[in-house]
């Protein structure tokens, strides 16, 4: 059975390592040529803000990892369209963000939905 993986990041960056470890899973699956996409929801949408300066809290920026997503073959970065408004003005212009109308319809397209 062929698999399709959707990884959901629903917590803000930097507060804990769950998002970073979710991204590691996504990049690892993509490296093995699996169909992979990311969905950012709730406080997770803040991952997509531009101009992040986490050096002040001695962390590495997550923007660089996301910018590499396309290079590693991730199919898309999804955001629920009603949540995109929260960051639209500040979204990282280097990222291609895909609004989705229904999370349920999106999840139905994947065999494996991973939400850590």
């Amino acid at each position: 059975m062929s698999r399709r993986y959707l990884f959901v990041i629903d917590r803000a960056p930097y507060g804990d390592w769950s998002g970073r470890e979710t991204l590691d899973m996504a990049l690892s699956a993509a490296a093995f040529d699996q169909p992979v996409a990311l969905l950012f929801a709730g406080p997770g949408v803040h991952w997509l803000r531009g101009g992040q300066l986490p050096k002040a809290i001695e962390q590495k920026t997550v923007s660089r990892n996301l910018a590499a997503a396309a290079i590693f073959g991730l199919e898309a970065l999804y955001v629920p369209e009603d949540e995109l408004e929260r960051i639209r003005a500040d979204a990282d212009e280097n990222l291609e963000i895909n609004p989705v109308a229904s999370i349920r319809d999106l999840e139905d397209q994947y065999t494996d939905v991973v939400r850590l």
Partner: protein
Amino acid sequence: MAAEEAARFTLVITGAPYSSQAPQTALYFARAAVTAGHTIAQVFLYGDGVHLASSLASPPSDETDWPAEWRAFLGEHRIPATCCIASALRRGLLDESEAKRYAKPASNIAAPYQVAGLGDWLAATQDSTRTLYFNGGQS
């Protein structure tokens, strides 16, 4: 009525014992699945879940020793179990060879757990009918 087809489950545990109920819930699920004739193909510890692999956990004698319960279950049913190396190293969980490599004074991951990368998780998901994730609570 036809008998239900047996499933092959991979269980991913990302919540630590004693800070979440994830290892306990996963163990109850695994026991029920095996009793019902299903197979647990692989257990993968990831994120905070790697703490379950610690062979040094020493809870008080009137509390359940979840790491020991899991070790016994894995041994009894010969279920392969993997501890994600990146998650484990940053949290101070090392097997003997990693402890040597990083010149650390002790190790705390031992059989039945193997230390490996995310390739093992991916292969397990491909080899299973379903992969279930047991997470800690939201902080």
